[in-house]
């Protein structure tokens, strides 16, 4: 970059930097506002700010339906995370290890679901699941969420596998480890950071998903569906309180995933010299 220095203009550079700040301001304005107004006393949030208050958190905390929604969200998120990660791991390993007729179709099935609009997924899921008597239950949300979360898990774990020396697996076989033993002693330990990364990311995706859950959850509303309910009713700063709360949980998961995914790349990179 330094070689470009003489071709740079200060004015252009600074206006571009200012533009970056502007873009991030736009993206983070609603997130920041939601946080600020969750701690603000006004019934109709605006400026000037009222005084500091935890009343919206209290209101939320005293609503048994919110607690129920949170419980549903956590249980569903945990199960979705585990199942999606298991399925995604299998698919990622399949893509890494095998070549077969129809692999393109397999990969399409493994990766496409998140590109279908959630509203259509929700509609199709509800129609189908009620047909097979699986709608309106927690399990219906789990089933639907795994469909859209497994591809994320697969992508994350596949990326990790592509960082693995392709000779590692045959090397373990060659040293007397059967395929199953190699899976246990080589593939899983190597991909472990990505496995946990995928677990946390898929949990976070499930935590925030509202459209499909809204369609199929019935009475087992998750927290985001509850937020949708608040949004449909009167405008209430309680949304800010829930939003901030969910944001903190999600970010904790994402940062955990980030630490896991970036933490242990050293050995493989150095291995190739």
């Amino acid at each position: 970059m330094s070689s470009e220095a003489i071709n740079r203009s200060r004015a252009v550079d600074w206006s571009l930097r200012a533009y970056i700040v502007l873009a991030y301001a736009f993206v983070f304005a609603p997130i920041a506002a939601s946080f600020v107004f969750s701690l603000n006393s006004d019934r109709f949030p605006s400026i000037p700010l009222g005084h500091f208050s935890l009343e919206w958190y209290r209101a939320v905390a005293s609503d048994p339906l919110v607690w129920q929604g949170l419980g549903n969200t956590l249980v569903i998120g945990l199960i979705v995370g585990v199942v999606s990660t298991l399925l995604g791991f299998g698919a990622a390993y399949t893509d890494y290890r095998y070549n077969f007729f129809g692999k393109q179709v397999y990969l399409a099935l493994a990766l496409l679901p998140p590109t279908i609009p959630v509203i259509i997924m929700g509609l199709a899921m509800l129609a189908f699941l009620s047909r097979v008597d699986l709608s309106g239950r927690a399990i219906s949300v789990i089933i639907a969420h795994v469909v859209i979360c497994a591809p994320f898990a697969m992508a994350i774990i596949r990326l990790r596998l592509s960082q693995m020396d392709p000779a590692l697996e045959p090397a373990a076989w060659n040293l007397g480890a059967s395929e199953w033993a190699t899976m246990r002693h080589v593939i899983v330990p190597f991909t472990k950071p990505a496995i946990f990364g995928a677990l946390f990311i898929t949990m976070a995706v499930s935590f925030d998903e509202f459209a499909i859950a809204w369609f199929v959850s019935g009475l087992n509303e998750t927290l985001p569906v509850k937020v949708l309910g608040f949004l449909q009713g009167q405008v209430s700063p309680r949304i800010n309180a829930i939003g901030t709360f969910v944001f903190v949980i999600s970010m904790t998961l994402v940062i955990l995933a980030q630490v896991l995914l970036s933490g242990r790349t050293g050995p493989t990179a150095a291995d190739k010299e």
Partner: protein
Amino acid sequence: MRPRLSIYGLTFSLPLLVWQLLFFVAPLAFLVALSFWTVKNFTMRPDFDAVNWITMYGKPVFWQAYATTFALAASASVLASVLAFPASYAIAFKLSDTARRWAVFLMVIPFFTSYLVRVYSWQIFLSDAGIVNVLLGYVGLGPYPMLNTVGATMVGYMTLSLPLVILLQLFSLVFIDRNLIEAAHNMRCGRVRTVFEVVIPSARVGLVIAALFCFILTFGDFVSPVYLGGGDPTTLSILITDTTKSGQQWPRAAVIALTMIGTLLAVAFFAVRFAYAGNAKGARK
């Protein structure tokens, strides 16, 4: 040795395949079947009747919503691409490696915040007594009605898609060989001209894919048109929820959903073809 079929291999390959066939392909296939069912006295009956297709495609409301949705999503894609490009360009070429990593990390955060909450937050900004109007009032302007307008819907669409568009653009820009840019400068290609003659053609695939994802996201979104746009004009997603929530008209909703999927597939097909069409003459990334 790569055995074609083994219990070991199938243990890993089959679960996802079975799951997606059962709970992804089957529901979409069922949606197709559903679109041919009939509704009598608020109950659905399995049938093979094109009546839903004929009814829906015969309604001006449907075509109006279709045109609105398509136009909104297309404008959003153009707008997001144009708004995102200077930012992703600057992040790719004007920031240090550390700053760039931070920029990417920050841009990932919005994906893990509730879209609903962010849209609600925009209501706080845009409502008649909201932050923006209060600020305008300080300088003696307004208030302007901003909520429940197409502009507010667009703000929502940008909230939804801008982070993804910036990230996708960024990933295609950082892979451009910097020597190309220096070579262009070296051949007396000016700064702005270099962007149009070298940078954009080199990053073409990524730029088109970013716009395509914006289209996919906004085309199916119902949150922004409802909670920021006030449900007017009606989009296809609003039409779907209205149709399902009222009177068991699921087969008709299925028609709308399938039309949307068909549209998305067609747009994706042409976008990808357009993205790669210039590759033969343009620089490969």
